[in-house]
């Protein structure tokens, strides 16, 4: 049989390694650009401590808009992130993605020497929800304020959803399968499914994730039509999902890129797997139909568990979507118990995004990063600014909670009706009956 493979694979059949074992996808690198920290370690420290960085939006041109509170990435000068030409040629969302990809590759210790002989073995997948709004605004202002002759040619590539995938791919020399997922906010999780699919089919590694930059005037104006947006003035009260005070969500910028690799290939080059992508499923229930998202999300969870061959009781922590809209919060709490049964009322649930806001597609990717580090540290991070839960779930508030975590479930929904669930497994060896002390190993 003659098969054209995307990767350098010499494997006998799709889904199998050269030794005949299953091709599994592991996380080997994490790069974070978030409102509460640059780099995975700083992000995790802030997340674990439950620090809230929600604040008044200060970006130029946003002052007079009725959206007051957001999660801005402030501790970062753009020219320290990327080369000067990308500051001119690409939008802020791409600067974030490129900088996050660099951090992830460094964390994975994946350098050019590792892939210069096999550039087709590494792909790039990002998810995008808003594209390059700031860049687009500048060029559209030139179009209508001056004339078409004043619109720069880079507009043709900078503001599209696919810009970050393309730039990361070109800059790194990654010639493997590339894609951009535009499936709403939950696309941040769907991107991992695409990456795992590429790896199953023969690709060695994928740089995957999402970063967004929706806090510029044009982009903010686009969001003002969302009835679920919180226009509260007080940063500590603006985003309080699962409480009687829930009044919508706070947007954020930033996100994360991860390096995922085929497990045996990663081990061969001496990389350290940090977690395994075990299962995913997605459903669609329509824009703002939050009551119906209950069934959609429950189905996504069930599908992801099935994909991961995971029993509901094995889920040790849930990273909730936590939209902050009463009907949506109710639907999510019910979906968790619909899908996990009685275990759904006992399993710790957390939503660290209440401290940084929702970075659209970048949001669930930040949750994936947090979930990996939660399993590594045996710590469930808390849900900042949230007290007095009015739903039947065990939401971790106040302080972080120590617990041995082997399996994490990350949930995401989009305003346009996408629901996704992703199951992650710890990279630590599975507990065996002969060695029961292993269970508490990472606590």
């Amino acid at each position, binding site marked *: 049989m003659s098969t054209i493979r995307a990767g350098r694979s010499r494997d006998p059949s799709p889904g199998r390694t050269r030794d005949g074992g299953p091709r599994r996808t592991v996380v080997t690198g994490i790069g974070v650009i978030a409102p509460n920290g640059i780099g995975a370690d700083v992000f995790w420290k802030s997340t674990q401590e439950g620090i809230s960085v929600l604040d008044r939006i200060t970006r130029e041109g946003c002052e007079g808009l009725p959206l007051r509170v957001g999660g801005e990435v402030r501790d970062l000068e753009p020219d320290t992130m990327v080369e000067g*030409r*990308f500051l*001119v040629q690409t939008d802020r969302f791409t600067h974030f993605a490129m900088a996050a990809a660099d951090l992830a590759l460094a964390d994975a210790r994946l350098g050019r020497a590792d892939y210069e002989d096999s550039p087709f073995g590494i792909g790039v997948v990002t998810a995008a929800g808003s594209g390059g709004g700031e860049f687009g605004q500048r060029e559209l202002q030139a179009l209508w304020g001056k004339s078409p*002759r004043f619109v*720069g040619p880079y507009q043709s590539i900078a503001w599209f959803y696919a810009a970050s995938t393309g730039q990361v791919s070109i800059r790194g020399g990654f010639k493997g399968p590339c894609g951009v997922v535009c499936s709403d906010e939950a696309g941040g999780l769907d991107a991992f499914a695409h990456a795992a699919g590429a790896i199953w089919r023969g690709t060695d590694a994928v740089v995957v994730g999402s970063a967004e930059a929706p806090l510029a005037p044009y982009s903010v104006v686009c969001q003002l039509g969302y009835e679920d947006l919180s226009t509260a003035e007080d940063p500590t009260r603006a985003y309080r999902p699962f409480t009687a005070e829930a009044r919508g969500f706070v947007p954020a910028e930033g996100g994360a890129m991860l390096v995922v690799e085929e497990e045996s290939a990663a081990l061969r080059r001496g990389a350290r797997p940090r977690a395994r992508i075990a299962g995913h499923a997605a459903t669609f229930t329509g824009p703002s139909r939050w009551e119906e998202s209950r069934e959609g999300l429950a189905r996504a969870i069930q599908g992801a568990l099935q994909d991961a061959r995971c029993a509901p009781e094995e889920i040790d922590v849930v990273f909730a979507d936590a939209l902050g809209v009463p009907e949506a919060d109710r639907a999510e709490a019910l979906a968790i118990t619909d899908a996990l049964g009685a275990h759904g009322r006992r399993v710790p649930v957390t939503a660290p995004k209440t401290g940084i806001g929702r970075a659209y597609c970048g949001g669930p990717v930040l949750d994936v990063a947090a979930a990996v580090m939660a399993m590594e540290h045996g710590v469930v991070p808390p849900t900042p600014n949230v007290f007095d839960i009015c739903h039947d779930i065990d939401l971790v508030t106040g302080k972080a909670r120590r617990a041995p975590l082997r399996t994490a479930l990350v949930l995401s929904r989009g305003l346009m009706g996408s629901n996704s669930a992703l199951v992650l497994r710890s990279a630590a060896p599975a507990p065996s009956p002969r060695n029961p002390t292993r269970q508490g190993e990472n606590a």
Partner: protein
Amino acid sequence: MTDAVTPEELAGLMRQNAGIPVEPAQLADHPDTSFEEYGLDSLGLLGIVAALENRHGSPMPQDAEKSRTPREFLDLVNTSLTKSGA
């Protein structure tokens, strides 16, 4: 002609329109080094052509955006500006 495009001006346009950090002296000393080697891609050159057209109020020769080196580009553009009497 005072309106001729100089290597200094081209270096400024490369920086402004494409973010390419090239020194004017470097461009003047190495006019045959390709735009590609300077890091300028075709979109960048297209933007420079448009900027010059806006600045001088006259169209640049069609082939200007296909120039491979600064010398080639400046020769084409300045010949055109001289002809148009700009």
